[in-house]
């Protein structure tokens, strides 16, 4: 109850005209950087940071976090409309969001995405409000074995989902691991797979790969097959937004499950990208009808978006309480905290009550502001699909290429994005799933580091992954999810066979 009182105090701090205006400004800027792939939230926040040095810390963090929310929303927009994830965490949204847009249901897809994202974010903030002290202590129990178990769980929940052959999935995932191994290795401190090419020292950027695989890959396919957007026929009206809004409660189970996954991944900290993949995987696995996933199922948009935002907002907690950023953007903001003269750590909650609770209150307000603003833009964005492909196609290509360049400001990445575009095209033609490769690129090196750190700690003894209740539970869950497809396969063999539906992703 003490937390509630603090929160009310926080609302007092955050609800001034000045701060609400900053929130709106932040959200709008965020939507802008989120819509432009490659720019993304981390870069946007970095660019804005020098402006905040002259502000007081509360105004500064309100501006930056609002921008973060805006960017997360903006990232979903391009995923759905053009199959280009503006943010790494909105990759999973493309799987069903883009097919929906192609079928002329862009308004619905965008509305579902924004509403479920807003819901996820609110659940994340409520969690922070109620459990702040407990969560900080809980997170301290996580060490390398626990982290590995969390990543293992994320992999396990996603594996066996591809409709294509398991061998193709294995090849895709292995390629992903190989790509993520490029560059400096944390555990050995040596360079790997760089072949003396200087540009490879920083590793292969996940974002560049994703922009190529999805954005350019899709563009190539569209050119070959001719544009089949039905968007022209679709009527874009604000009323449609409201009609969609009313159907949302139908998906309460997906919403709740995804929010729980998001909060868990935000706190542990697996990060929003892992959360959205895991949530998508589980939504498909536990859906009553599994067909239609990857072809424009509503749950396929709701699940990753809810988890993404629940993780994004709950990741703020470990950042404040432990000084461990749960996402790339959180890392940038943490640097800001220190420049404003605040030390992240357990004492922040006690010494800087105004700051912490003002921030938490601003997260409630900022997300409400963000949802209202982005919903208002839905008809506008959906209308973009009416523009003929001859115009929008080159624009998409420009966005992809400039987005890839912005990631690290390196011209080498321009070649990389084109190569990945061709890879994406070939993968789709040969029916190789892209999603496992992307997941391996996101979590591969983290999982590897955690595994090898654990092995160093235990002197090479694998029993460290069962050494306490926490890690054993997560591992057991992971193993269960891993063998689930086998179990259901056996069950299916015993019954007359049924089409399981393919993932085109």
């Amino acid at each position: 109850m003490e937390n509630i009182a603090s929160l009310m105090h926080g609302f007092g701090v955050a609800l001034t005209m000045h701060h609400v205006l900053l929130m709106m400004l932040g959200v709008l800027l965020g939507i802008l950087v989120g819509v432009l792939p490659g720019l993304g939230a981390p870069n946007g926040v970095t660019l804005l940071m020098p402006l905040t040095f002259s502000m007081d810390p509360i105004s500064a963090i309100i501006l930056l976090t609002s921008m973060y929310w805006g960017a997360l929303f903006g990232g979903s927009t391009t995923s759905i409309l053009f199959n280009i994830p503006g943010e790494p965490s909105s990759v999973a949204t493309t799987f069903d969001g883009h097919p929906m847009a192609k079928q002329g249901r862009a308004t619905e897809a965008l509305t579902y995405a924004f509403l479920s994202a807003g819901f996820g974010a609110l659940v994340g903030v409520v969690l922070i409000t109620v459990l702040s002290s407990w969560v900080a202590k809980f997170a301290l129990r996580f060490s390398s074995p626990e982290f590995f178990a969390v990543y293992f769980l994320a992999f396990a929940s996603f594996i066996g989902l591809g409709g294509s052959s398991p061998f193709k999935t294995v090849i895709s995932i292995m390629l992903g691991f190989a790509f993520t191994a490029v560059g400096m290795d944390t555990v050995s401190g040596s360079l790997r797979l760089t072949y003396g090419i200087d540009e490879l020292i920083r590793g292969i950027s996940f974002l560049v790969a994703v922009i190529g695989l999805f954005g350019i890959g899709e563009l190539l396919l569209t050119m070959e097959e001719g544009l089949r957007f039905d968007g022209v026929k679709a009527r874009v009206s604000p009323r449609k937004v409201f009609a969609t809004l009313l159907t949302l409660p139908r998906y309460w189970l997906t919403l709740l499950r995804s929010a729980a996954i998001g909060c868990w991944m935000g706190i542990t900290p697996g990060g929003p990208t892992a959360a959205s993949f895991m949530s998508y995987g589980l939504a498909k696995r536990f859906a009553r009808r599994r067909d239609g996933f990857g072809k424009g199922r509503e749950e396929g948009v709701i699940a990753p978006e809810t988890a993404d935002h629940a993780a994004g907002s709950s990741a703020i907690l470990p950042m404040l309480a432990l000084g461990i950023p749960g996402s790339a953007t959180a890392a940038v903001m943490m640097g800001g905290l220190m420049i404003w003269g605040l030390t992240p750590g357990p004492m922040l909650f006690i010494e800087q009550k105004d700051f912490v609770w003002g921030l938490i209150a601003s997260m409630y307000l900022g997300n409400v502001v963000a949802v209202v603003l982005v919903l208002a833009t839905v008809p506008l964005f959906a209308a973009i699909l009416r523009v003929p492909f001859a115009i929008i196609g080159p624009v998409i290509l420009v966005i992809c290429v400039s987005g890839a360049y912005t990631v690290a400001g390196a011209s080498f990445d321009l070649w990389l994005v084109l190569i990945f575009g061709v890879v994406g095209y070939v993968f789709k033609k040969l029916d190789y799933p892209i999603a496992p490769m992307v997941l391996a690129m996101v979590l591969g090196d983290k999982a590897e580091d955690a595994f090898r750190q654990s092995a160093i700690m235990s002197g090479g003894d694998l029993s460290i992954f069962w050494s306490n209740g926490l890690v054993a539970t997560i591992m057991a869950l992971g193993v269960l999810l891993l063998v689930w497809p086998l179990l259901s396969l056996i069950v299916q063999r015993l019954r007359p066979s049924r089409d399981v539906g393919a993932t085109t992703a």
Partner: protein
Amino acid sequence: MMMKKALMAATALVAALGISAAEAAWKPSKPVEFVVTSGPGGGTDQFARTVQAIITKHNLLDQPVVVVNKGGGSGAEGFVYGKTAAGEPHKVIFATNNEWLLPLVAKLAFKPDDLTPVAAMAVDEFLLWVPGDSPHQDAKSFIEAAKAAPGKMKIGGSQSKDTDHILVKQIEKAAGIKVTYVPFKSGGEAATQLAGGHVDANTNNPAENLGQWKAGGVRPLCVFAPDRMAKGEPVVDGKGWADIPTCKEAGVPLEHYQMPRTVFLPGDVPQEAVAFYVDLLKQVREKPEWQEYITRTSQSNRFFAGEDFQTFIRNNEDEGRAVIAAEGWLVN
């Protein structure tokens, strides 16, 4: 026609003036880029951004300053970038001693001589930390426990074959012990792992562990410096940085281990440009915000430039090279 001629004459005059000014003293003629050899939020990043903030606030430069992060490959990305910018004095590289240590352990298309040293603006201290509930009250008891169980004590740090790892190897040698080093991604991660009791000690810089020390999650045993640290505000229970004994006092004969915050220019830049930046950085460190940064991060406010800085680099590299060679990490 007249107008055009007059304009040309004026341009020529300005150009002439510009050239004569450049001969006297170099000045940036376009926006200056600060290249940070760490990711956003890291120690080097804060260093560069603090300098940027001071320059901007006090109008020390006529040109705007842009900060870019090139922290890939433990900073190698930024160094290679600096190398390819040879002759371009509008790019300033911010680093630590990784500028000369990294090329020893990783095969890079970059040698320390490829950049022009400008100055070191502060040195960061290293301390030996244990969890708040550790049975060890001083460094002596910690070392004895480590001696009793060779290889069992786990010390966490940031990265592999990097400053923390080299320090741990030096501790092993100086104290005659054997421990297990666990490399994490960052000092922040090493701090949390220590507070959670997952490792037995770490060798973090003051700022990296400050938050957890305040909360009682971790406790300093000793500092690897010739003298105790500067007195400041008490941190916890009336104890402050100056109350921490040096490791030498505490029985670990290791007193010179510090990480400098360094500034470099690309190779082949005019001597005047180097002088310009040395002067600029001197102005920066006279501002109250710089003192604030030094106090907040508990670093030592030291300034090396020119020959002093060269000597510092040589000594630091020799010490580092000795450990790196003994461990078999040398790549060239």
